[in-house]
């Protein structure tokens, strides 16, 4: 549940190439109608990842609301597939493109291709390569700011529990968003007087891995009083490990992202804070921006969305509920 997809496995890619090619093609074909209506294409880096499905959901919902036709394409984490998808979208005569690029580095050829076509393009989750300017808007999460906020919150959790040692379950640090989160968090820990004793990076992004890592983290550092989760599965796994060890409440947990699972854990008091990354919100805003461009309305080139905190106390407030609805669709689970 993160805007950067997992390391692509060629085999799995193969699997999904088959299944998702079919899955993506069918509804898209049904939705393309002749007429004067605008059509927007959402090109996802990998629809294996729920995060991108939720972005897609947001984009689709907003498109419907604005009366725009919507098609969806999956790049399977491959820059080559991504280029193919852009060409396919052009062939199908779309008027605007919203894309979560496979990586920042993969964007220049896409922008070069779109340059003379006069088609607005908005990025979600991952921004374009620095220096590129020929795009309509980039809608991202403010990872650095969110990292600071969450760092401050987690340090507070540790202090409430009579300590200052914290541990981190991190996304792979070769990712730009992970580096930004970590940078923000480290600054906050330093400012608040907390000690980050261990950073464990995930490889598979599974709950199982996070459980084992939390166990190892607490074995090595029994005096850790709070855990910083950088991705949704981290908190789910940490919660499970704490439940098994009878440490619920004694060790605090907060995480970025948010999902039905972590929302439930928040309500149950197993974890203490969620910094919502508005996946659906990114899709909504990106479609709004290209629509503005098509209709001549003003656009915002850089649109960093905040990652608002929700806690067990305010989760049922109308404000928090509204925010949650900008994260995941109702089909994913309860808010």
């Amino acid at each position, binding site marked *: 549940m993160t805007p950067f997809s997992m390391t692509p496995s060629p085999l799995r890619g193969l699997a999904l190439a*088959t299944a998702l090619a079919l899955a993506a093609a069918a509804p898209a074909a049904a939705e393309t109608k002749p007429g004067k209506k605008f059509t927007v294409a959402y090109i996802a880096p990998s629809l294996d990842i729920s995060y991108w499905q939720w972005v897609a959901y947001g984009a689709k919902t907003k498109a419907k609301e604005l009366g725009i036709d919507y098609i969806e394409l999956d790049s399977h984490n491959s820059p080559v597939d991504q280029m193919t998808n852009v060409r396919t979208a052009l062939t199908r005569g779309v008027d605007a493109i919203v894309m979560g690029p496979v990586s920042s580095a993969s964007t220049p050829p896409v922008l070069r291709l779109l340059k003379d076509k006069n088609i607005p393009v908005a990025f979600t989750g991952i921004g374009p390569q620095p220096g590129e300017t020929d795009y309509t808007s980039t809608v991202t999460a403010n990872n650095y700011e969110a990292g600071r906020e969450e760092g401050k919150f987690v340090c507070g959790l540790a202090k409430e529990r009579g300590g200052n040692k914290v541990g981190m379950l991190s996304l792979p640090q070769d990712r730009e968003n992970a580096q930004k989160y970590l940078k923000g968090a480290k600054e906050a820990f330093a400012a608040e007087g907390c000690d980050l004793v261990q950073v464990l990076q995930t490889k598979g992004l599974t709950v199982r891995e996070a*459980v084992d890592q939390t166990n*190892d983290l607490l*074995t090595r550092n029994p005096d850790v009083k709070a855990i910083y989760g950088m991705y949704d599965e981290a908190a789910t796994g940490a919660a499970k490990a704490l439940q098994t060890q009878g440490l619920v409440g004694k060790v605090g947990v907060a995480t970025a992202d948010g999902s039905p699972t972590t929302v439930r854990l928040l309500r149950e008091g197993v974890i203490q804070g969620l910094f919502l990354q508005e996946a659906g919100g990114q899709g909504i805003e990106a479609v709004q921006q290209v629509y503005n461009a098509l209709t001549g309305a003003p656009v915002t080139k850089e649109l960093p969305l905040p990652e608002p905190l929700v806690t067990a106390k305010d989760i049922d407030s109308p404000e928090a509920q509204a925010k949650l609805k900008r994260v995941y669709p109702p089909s994913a689970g309860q808010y």
Partner: protein
Amino acid sequence: MTDTIAGAPVQAPPVRPRRAGAGTRLLRVYRTEIAIAAAIVLIELVVSLWSPQALSFGNLANVAQASAPLILVSLGVFLVIATSGIDLSVGSTFSLTGMVAGLGLSAGLSWPVACLASLGVGIGVGAINGALVTFVGLAPFVVTLVTFAVGASLAFVVTDGHSIAILDPDFWRLNGGTLVPGVVNYVLFCIAGVALLEFALRKLVLGRWVYAIGSNAKAARLLGIPVDAVRFGVYVASGLFASFSSLMSLSYISNSEATSGANLMLQAIAACVIGGASLFGGTGSAIGAMLGAVMITVIQNGVNLIGINSFWQGSVTGLVILVAVLIDRFTKARA
């Protein structure tokens, strides 16, 4: 030409009248396994130099819990490898059957029913593998690559990629309950699985057939051994072990994810090879496969406890496999 013994009757070498003692024979049969067990102890001792908690009960319980799913999957994979086949599909079978169980539970099935459904899917995948390999005569690598790909994609298809939180209040008992007083189920199932399989492989005719087929399938067929039936059986068993393992894991972390088995396939094959199985078949043991799985987990645990960047885990595991294989080869060459 100059030797004087040439004409003398050749002295018969001293005759061993009886077989070697039971202990000596066990030592010989389980030479590799004993070496791995010693290596595991050694690794733990080395890790405990950095992190004394490594040998604590809590950490050992964590290692046992973390290795349980891998052990169960490896047992099934070992059966296939022992017949000189290969099963690449276990990882995706693990994911898929976990998703099936999760779906069943969230649809309101009681957990034993959901488990049966899940086991049925595992057996089904194994039966497809087995039928294509034995009765159609396709190469195991190709067949299981296909079922791997299809299984991985179906794991996403069944729930549209969403992960499912398991809320059934009793399901945890499958993993964490105690069928036999004093022994947690996951330990019990692993030990029982290994013991039963080892017994069958050593003491039942069926087990000897497995090795016979792996040793020389053509000869086995000429000898009238039911090669096709046994081959079919091992693939079914592999699917069954993968799905059972998935249920255990699901019962523990109470969260089913479409990617949960992503790393398992290579780890399980590695576990078998570390445990003395040859990819050409005919060698190895269930105990070896278990120890291989434990060793992989112990390395992961050790890397985290020492605080090495987890990106190095793959390298460390790889090197340990290489060392294990080299030692095995070296000692065999001398024996």
